[in-house]
């Protein structure tokens, strides 16, 4: 009962935050000379008006969801994986190259190999900051962010250099993936691919493991109180490193999905800070797996809708980043805002009481 009450309060403040974000967004739109209502209508149209747009929205929701869950897996165990972007990109480039190198093999073999390679790559790249954190207590936020930039340049180097496309018009991209290896597309013209089923399985597994099994409980214990967890006999170091490995492997898998499902080539459009969007989703929902799944749909709606808004209403699409972060600001501060409102109210009633008592005292004396 208590829990449901908290959830209700949380949902209410989330809705309020979203409403406020749209209000602030409208203000920014109006100030910069766009009609807010028109822009928001184009946003809804851009993401939901036909099957193709809905497909694109679902595809992006899938990316956000797995990235968000990857972030949550780490955060629950007490390690912030901010380096998912790099893990995703490296996974993608390796997966693309596996597809190119194994051309001629059966589809299922190539896809399994590519997925395994991408996950191994992502996991390995997350392993390094994980070990540094556990063994040496090096701040993982800085190391993972730095490794992101390193990964971006490594991928660029590979796509421009040793693994570059033989077509000179493609400046930074690997060879195109043979059509036989493309994942099936349920909606014609949309980027949505059958990878969404794999993602659904991953999402369910992560939810199940984190919420319903003892492993998930041990992870949470490690994240909340590592000292206690250690005294309770848990191998906290192993749990943290394992969480980081899983988190990295999930990001790598997203990279593989993007290459085989959406782009069919590795180039810079594989990910444009998509992991950071996923991380924001995870933060808003306080790393709750079910919340992440729902929230990623909403954020995908914002992002894909913003592209439509840019095309049809001429509004720069970055407005979605503003909307998104305003929601986060409010959600992160909800407790603090509520507390200061309460404090102000308490102060006012206390003052009123004091004044009433003073008046009473004055009357008695007089």
């Amino acid at each position, binding site marked *: 009962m208590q829990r449901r009450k908290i959830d209700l309060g949380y949902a209410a403040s989330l809705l309020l935050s979203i409403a406020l974000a749209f209000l602030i967004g409208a203000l920014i739109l109006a100030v910069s000379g766009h009609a807010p209502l028109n822009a928001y209508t184009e946003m809804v149209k851009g993401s939901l008006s036909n099957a193709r747009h809905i497909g694109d929205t679902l595809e992006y929701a899938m990316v956000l969801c797995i990235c968000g869950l990857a972030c949550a897996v780490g955060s629950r165990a007490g390690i912030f994986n901010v380096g998912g972007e790099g893990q995703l990109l490296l996974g993608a480039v390796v997966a693309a190259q596996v597809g190119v190198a194994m051309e001629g093999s059966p589809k299922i073999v190539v896809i399994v190999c590519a997925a395994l390679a991408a996950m191994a790559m992502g996991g390995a790249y997350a392993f390094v900051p994980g070990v540094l954190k556990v063994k040496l207590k090096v701040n993982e936020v800085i190391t993972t962010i*730095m490794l992101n930039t390193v990964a971006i340049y490594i991928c660029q180097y590979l796509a421009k250099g040793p693994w570059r496309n033989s077509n000179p018009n493609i400046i930074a991209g690997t060879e195109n993936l043979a059509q036989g290896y493309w994942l099936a597309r349920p909606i014609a013209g949309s980027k949505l691919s059958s990878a969404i089923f794999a993602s659904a399985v991953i999402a369910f597994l992560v939810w199940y493991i984190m919420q319903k099994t003892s492993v998930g409980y041990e992870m949470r214990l490690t994240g909340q109180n590592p000292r206690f967890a250690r005294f309770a006999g848990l191998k906290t170091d192993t749990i943290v490193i394992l969480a980081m490995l899983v988190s990295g492997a999930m990001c790598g898998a997203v990279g593989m999905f993007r290459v085989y499902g959406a782009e069919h080539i590795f180039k810079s459009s594989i990910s444009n800070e998509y992991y950071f969007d996923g991380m924001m989703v995870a933060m808003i929902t306080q790393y709750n797996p079910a919340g992440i799944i729902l929230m990623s749909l909403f954020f995908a709606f914002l992002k894909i809708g913003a592209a439509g808004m840019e095309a049809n209403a001429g509004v720069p699409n970055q407005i979605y980043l503003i909307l998104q972060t305003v929601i986060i600001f409010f959600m992160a501060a909800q407790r603090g805002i509520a507390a200061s409102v309460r404090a102000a109210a308490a102060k006012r009633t206390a003052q009123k009481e004091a004044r009433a008592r003073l008046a009473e005292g004055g009357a008695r004396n007089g």
Partner: protein
Amino acid sequence: MDEILRHIFSAGTFNQMLRSATPVALAAMGGLLTEHAGIMNIGMDGMILMGAFIGVLGSYLCASAAMGVASAVLLGVAVGLFFALFVVKFKSDEFIIGCALNTFAAGLTAYLSRSIFGLSGTSGHDIAHLPTVHLDFLDAIPFFGEILNDNSFFIYLTWGLVALMWVFVYKTPCGFWIRAAGEKPETLRTAGISPERMKWIASILCGICCGLAGAHLSLGYLNGSFVEGMSNSRGYIAFACVIFGAANPAKAYIAALMFGFFDALGYRLQSYISSDLTSIIPYLITVVMMVYVVVRGQRKKTTLRTNTTAQKE
């Protein structure tokens, strides 16, 4: 080989080192204040980015680079207030607020840049930039003159700021209180000074420093142009410099110089290997720096422990 080495260790490299280090150093001067005040400030990257944009915007609207710098400083105050409002007043998770601030800055600056300057950004516009300073007497000094001369005014300003910050942090009561706010907030409160107020002050000063760093980046380093995402993780590197320098202004500046040197080295090596690979160098070095500082700290601790046990025996 000899020629390559001479090319790499030329005066030009060290000049580039100074130029690359300055934005990072400026931001680090602010970051060390919040670090002392006990706030983990991940949001510096966004603060720099906003400063860079507002600097260009101010310079564009007023046709004066000085006004650009002034507006970046004002924005720094506003961002510092905003950051403190959430982190200090509302007690939100500083990591989440910092991350969100970075994304917010990326979104807002790109949105405004496209709304105001059009899709191609500032490239087609004539924006007043900061002048470089030429000192005649430096011409007489061969190698060092070349390094130190003809720089943006901000490079010299940064030296002054490092000294000033050192005095502020270690020699003034306010600096002492800021440090106490991070280390022993309850003791400070008993002494009748609010640690929260010190955190507000540290945040605002950090905002100003990051605003200056941004203004230098767009108006000085890039001669009056704004590029989307131009802070390029410099805020995070500044944070790493703060950690590396144990929040000491002089040491943080040296760390920034080290970053600048490897950045410059990368530029030089571009003549020999792919620029994508050379760009990695400063970021990898930052990771190595982070590892080194921890290992050094642990070694100190163990030697201390062995010393004390030795004394007991």
